[in-house]
Structures are given as structure tokens and as C-alpha cells.
């Protein structure tokens, strides 16, 4: 009896603390979602408090919208490549920095100078996306003034009269952007994986080494399984980043809110913003927002489920 009352009291106590944050969360996060959902059934222009209810018109228009479908495809492409490439590179570097060094008598350690490398690899993470866009805008600049073009021209690989218009090439533009995201992300995930690797007891590695395991075997049989939780989390985060991409695309590529040339770098967020702010089709944009939300939720659920494994305790 007293036990129950006790726990009831504690529940109330805890709830007392949670009411305010919960109310804030409901008002400022959940309520806008519900509003958006509502607006997606209207022809709201985004610049006026008046609008009409149009039912599912926005959603059926969305199905036929080639630009949006193209953008969705680009997002899916990025969804495959951004997490895979970033995680593979960061894992490789993290392993080299923590366990890739000469296996001398001192046991397991990283390559020489690994402490310094860790700091340097982290640099890109410090820069904001807006700065990245400017920085890589200068790298990809389409005349001789661009870093890449200038470099290639000096080497005699590119004709100065016909420099490569990196971000104006339908076949290059998405990969150019992918490179920026990977460059930006590797440092952070490297540090994340390093931290996870350092928490793996050294004696596990030593045991593996004593048993005659090579570097590759150590990585696949020991390191990766023990790091699986971190890899899984990273995949979700990177997947979400790949579903976004708004800042880079809108500032680096041509067109209103980017997406150029001719929709070849379009992502859902840029199509959404163009319809929302430029074409005055806010109701339609809200429908896109709802689709993005649903896709992102599905993505997170799938990633977490597909990568579920048994925990290894150590």
C-alpha cells in the first residue's frame, strides 16, 4: 500500500518538472507540425492570412511534379552515398589513428603523430555551412580564378579558354556537393569513432594480436563489432543530413534557392523553399514538408531497425 502511494507521489513529483518543458515542446514543435499538415490541404500563398481548402489537390499535384520527383531522387542518391562514404573514410582514419600504428612491444597505438591529426581532421567541423559554401564556391569557381581550375590550368590539363564549370555541369554538380559534405563530416565522425575505439579495452586487441590477427582482421573482427552502436547512430545523422542539403545547394548552385543547372542539383528542401517563398505556393510547399517529414521518419525507423544487432558487452 505504502509502496504504491510512494511511487504515485514520485510520479507526480517528476511530472511537475516535466509539465513546462512538455508544454513548450507541444506549443513550439508539435503545434507547427499540425499547422503545416493543415496548410497542406489549402491554397495558402504564404503572404496572406486568407486561403481556401483544396483537399488533396496539393498532394496529387506533387505526384505529377517532375521537379520534385527529381529532387527526391537526388536526396535518395545522397542518402546512399553521404553516410556510406563518410563513415567508411572516418572509420578508416579513426582506426589508423587509434590502432593502426606499428604493433611494437608497447601494445596497440595509432600512427605517429595521431594526436595532432585528430585536431587537424576536426577543423572542417568548426566551420559553419555558410562559410563552407563560400569556401568551396571559390574552389569550384568556373573561370581561371577558381582553385581547381587554376590548378588544372597550371598543370596544362585544362584549356584556360574553356575552364570546367564545375557547378554548372549536370553530371558533376551533385558529386561536387557530395564532396563538400563528406569533407565537412569526416572530422566529426572520426572523433566520434575514436572515442568509441578508446573505450574498447586494450587487452582485447592484445589478445587478438597474440592470436596472430592482422590489422584487417583486427578491424573487422574486433573494432567494427564493438563500434556498431556508434556507426548506427552516425548513419541516422548522416542520412538526415543527406535528406536536407538545403544550405549548400541553395547557396552554391544557380537558380532561385539553387537547384541548377536545370534542376540537376535540386533537393526537396530547395523545391519547397522556391514554392513557398518565390512562387507563392505555400500550401503546396507545406505538402512537400509533410512528405519530407514522413520520409525522414521512415528513414530513421528503417536505419535503426536494419542495423539492429546484439550488443557486445565489454
Amino acid at each position, binding site marked *: 500500500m505504502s509502496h504504491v502511494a510512494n511511487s504515485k507521489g514520485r510520479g507526480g513529483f517528476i511530472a511537475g518538472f516535466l509539465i513546462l518543458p512538455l508544454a*513548450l515542446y507541444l506549443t*513550439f*514543435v508539435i503545434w*507547427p*507540425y499540425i*499547422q*503545416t499538415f493543415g*496548410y497542406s490541404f489549402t491554397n*495558402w*500563398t*504564404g*503572404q*496572406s*492570412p*486568407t486561403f481556401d481548402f483544396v483537399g488533396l489537390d496539393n498532394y496529387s499535384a506533387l505526384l505529377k511534379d517532375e521537379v520534385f520527383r527529381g529532387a527526391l531522387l537526388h536526396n535518395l542518391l545522397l542518402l546512399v552515398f553521404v553516410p556510406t562514404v563518410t563513415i567508411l573514410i572516418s572509420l578508416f582514419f579513426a582506426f589508423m589513428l587509434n590502432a593502426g600504428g606499428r604493433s611494437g612491444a608497447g601494445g596497440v597505438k595509432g600512427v605517429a603523430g595521431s594526436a595532432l591529426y585528430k585536431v587537424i581532421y576536426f577543423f572542417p567541423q568548426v566551420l559553419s555551412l555558410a562559410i563552407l559554401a563560400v569556401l568551396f564556391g571559390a574552389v*569550384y*569557381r*568556373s*573561370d*581561371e*580564378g*577558381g582553385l581547381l*581550375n587554376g590548378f588544372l590550368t597550371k598543370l596544362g590539363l585544362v584549356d*584556360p*579558354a*574553356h*575552364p570546367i*564549370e*564545375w557547378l*554548372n555541369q*549536370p553530371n558533376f554538380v551533385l558529386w561536387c556537393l557530395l564532396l563538400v559534405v563528406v569533407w565537412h563530416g569526416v572530422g566529426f565522425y572520426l572523433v566520434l569513432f575514436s572515442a568509441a575505439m578508446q573505450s574498447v579495452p586494450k587487452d582485447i586487441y592484445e589478445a587478438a594480436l597474440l592470436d596472430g590477427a592482422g590489422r584487417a582482421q583486427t578491424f573487422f573482427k574486433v573494432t567494427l563489432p564493438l563500434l556498431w552502436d556508434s556507426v548506427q547512430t552516425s548513419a541516422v*545523422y548522416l542520412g*538526415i*543530413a543527406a*535528406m*536536407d542539403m*538545403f544550405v549548400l545547394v541553395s547557396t552554391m548552385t*544557380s*537558380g*532561385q534557392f539553387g537547384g*541548377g*543547372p*536545370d534542376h540537376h542539383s535540386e533537393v526537396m*528542401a530547395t523545391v*519547397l*523553399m*522556391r514554392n*513557398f*517563398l*518565390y*512562387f*507563392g505556393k*505555400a500550401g503546396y510547399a*507545406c505538402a512537400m*514538408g*509533410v512528405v*519530407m*517529414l514522413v520520409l*525522414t521518419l521512415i528513414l*530513421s525507423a528503417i536505419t535503426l531497425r536494419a542495423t539492429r544487432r546484439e550488443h557486445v558487452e565489454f
Partner: protein
Amino acid sequence: MGSTSAHGENSNGEGFGRRDLIKRSAALGLIAVPTMSFLSACASGSDETTKGNESKVAVTKENPFGVAKGGKLDVVVFKGGYGDDYAKAWEAAFDKKWGTTSSHLSTQEITSKLQPRFNGGNPPDVVDDSGAQQIKLDVLVKGDQLTDLTVVLDAPSLDDPSKKVRDTLMPGTIESGMVGGKFVALQYVYTVWGLWYSGKLFKEKGWTAPKTWPEFMDICQKAKAAGIGGLAHQGKYPYYINVAIMDLIAKKGGLDAMKAIDNLEPNAFADNPVALEAVEAIYEIVEKDLLMPGTNGLTHTESQTQWNQGKAAFITSGSWLENEQLKQTPEDFDMQFLPMPVLPGSKLPFEAIRAGAGEPFIVPEKAANKAGGLEFLRSMLSREWSTLFAQQANSLTVLKDGVDPTVKLRAGTQSAVTALKAAGDNTFNYRYADWYSEMGTELENASNELMAKRIQPKEWIKRAQAAVDKATKDPNAKNNKRS
């Protein structure tokens, strides 16, 4: 941001707070899903209509809108190439005359600053709705957010009360402020569009400004031989190259060809030999490799700066170019305006230019001090205020002879004035980009592909006509007609 103090802390204050809070929590990682910030951006303010305080001041000839003495005036201006000193000077003059307290906000982020206020029903009294982030006029009209400014046109002019304001304006001003069949925007800055070149460079090379298309191509060839580009354009923003294409169409086919496009006619581009010839002419520049290297991927400032450094003979732009490039232009550059050269057999003469009014000033329908806003626009069309603008912003206004002759203009602006005089009545101006944002964007995409040599002129025509046909479905298409 003085303007926030001018309006209440009701729904609007909450609107700001909500966005800030979401931004902050996103930074904290509370919101990991990126869609959230977009979704919450979609949330509008509540649907409340704050009724403007209807003035009870008697309407007189001196005070045609019934402005109440005292009170507040909320002004928002775009701070672009013209700066905002002129607006501060105007507000001071207005406050002195009417005893008002003006709040001044100058920004480049018109949309993000004003959208919550339009949605919340408490917009400012006067807005200079310009720049890359302007709120599109067609969008505002669709939402019934703009005051019909015809009353300003019919009010007596401040300089000469026997005249109406409408009789003191440059030709095309009223036309360019019409959206959805209403006069909703006072386009205040008089602009000409066309090609620009360096008088100094041309003198050095012994080139004369071309009047026909073959002459133009000849100079481009000579420029290439001299190791520089013929034409530079602002490739990242294909708006600019469309000026060249559309000007060629209008000059070759006459005003009817232009109106056919604005009126969304089924043969505006398709089966129109004039349009095809114009696009082919532009494509010839690409085909003969006469573009400035890399220009297709450059922003407006990058390509204009290259042009300022003598890397290309010509560039397309409007007359704001000189102001925009003030810092990058060498002292002795001698910037000169050139009307678009004509194709053989053109209906309009070489002197004809695209000229019109830009920089739209609007008075929101739900402005708290609507009378003040209207009076502000009327004052802008006085010689005193117009001269203030010409001095501070080095640009012409839509007021006829609105600049005191003692004001000295820069070389580029002066050359534009000369070209305008030579053009006389031969001016034209497109409206489709203001009327149909989506169509404008699709034409720009097509031109981007054309300049990159990825599509041929025939394909451009096909895409352009498809964009026109799509625009006919716009609900405003029945109101946006010109003759």
C-alpha cells in the same frame, strides 16, 4: 530594428519568439530532423485582422488622403545598390511636415522580415519591396495584401497642384506597377537595360559601338583575337542573358512580339520565326566561342568585376550596374550604355531600349497608417524628394524632369540618360517576370542550358512555349493583359 517598437507585441511578437526558440532548440540538437525547421517555417501567424485606425481627418486638396498630424509611420526599405540614406532624408522631411514619428528599417531580407507581419495582419505603412528576397508582387496581389494606389495617381502633384500626379510620370511607370489589373506598386527608379562597355577599352582598341548584330559579332571576334571575351554574362543568374534574348525579340518583331509573350499567346514563341532568330543570334555567340571563359558559372559580381578588369568587351545589365560596381570600377573605365544591336529587318530602330520603372514601393492593404503611406508616395513624386534620391543614390526617378539640373551624374548614368533621350518614344518593357514568377524561372533555366551549349535554339523555343502554356493556367492570367 526600430520597426518592432512601432507595432504591438501581440501575435507578431509571438511569431518572432516562436521562430527564435525553434532556431535555438535546433542548435541544441533538440530538433535533429531538418524537416522540422522547414515545417515550422510554414506555420503562419493567426488569422487576425487588425483594422487600420481609420482617420477622421478631413480630406482637403493639400491633404488628399486625410493624414492625421502626429502618429506613426512605419517604413521598410530594401538596402541594396541605392543604400538607405535617401530614405532617411525622406523620413526626416515627412516627420517635419506631418509631425509624425517614422520608424525606419532597412534590410536585404525583405521576405523573412515582412512575411510574418503580412500574415499577422500588421504590415508596415510603406515598403520598398526589392532585391533578391523581395516578396513577389503577384503573390501579394493574390492574397489581397496591397492597396490600390490609383488614388495617388489622381491626387494633385505637390509641385504643381493644378496637375495630377499621373501627368508628371515617365512613360511606362503606371503600366509597370499594374499587377492583376490593379495599380499596386509605385516603381520608383527609372531604369534602362541593355549592353554595357568600357569607353576607355573601346578607344584603346579603336572599336566603335556596334548598332547592328553583324557589327556586334565583329567586335566580339576582334575581342577574342585580342585575347579577351566578347560577351560576359552573369551565368549563375540567367535573368541577365534573358534581357538580351528578349530585347532582340522585341526589337526584331516589334511591340506585338513582346505583348504576345506577356499576354501568354499560344504562338508567343512556337512557330514564331522572330523568336527563333533572336535565340539563334545569341546561340551564335556560344557556338563561335565568343563568351568570356567561365562566365556561365559566375555570379553577377564575379562576372561584372571580370568585365571591369577588361576580360570581356560587353556585359548585359540594367542601369543599376554602375552603382553596384562602384568599388570595382577603375577610375578611367568610362562606363557606357549601349542599346541592344538590331538584327537585320528589325521593326524597332537601334535606338529603341528596354526602359521602365523598377524598385517597387507598396502600401499594404492592412497598414495601420495607410493615409500616411499614400502621402509618403505622393511626396516621393515631388521634385524635392526626387532630387534627394538622385543625389544620394545616383539614379533617375520616374518623375519627369525630376532631377535638379545642377546634380552631376556619373558617366554610365549620364550615357543612359543620353540613350533615353535618343530613344524618345521607342521604349518597351516586359512584364511576364513580375506577373508569372514560375514562367520567368523556367525561361531562365532554358537560357542557362542554351548558354552552356546543352540545348539548341529550337529546344529553347519549345521549352519557352511550354512555360507560357503552363502560365495560362495561373488564375491571374485573365487580369494580366496588356495592349
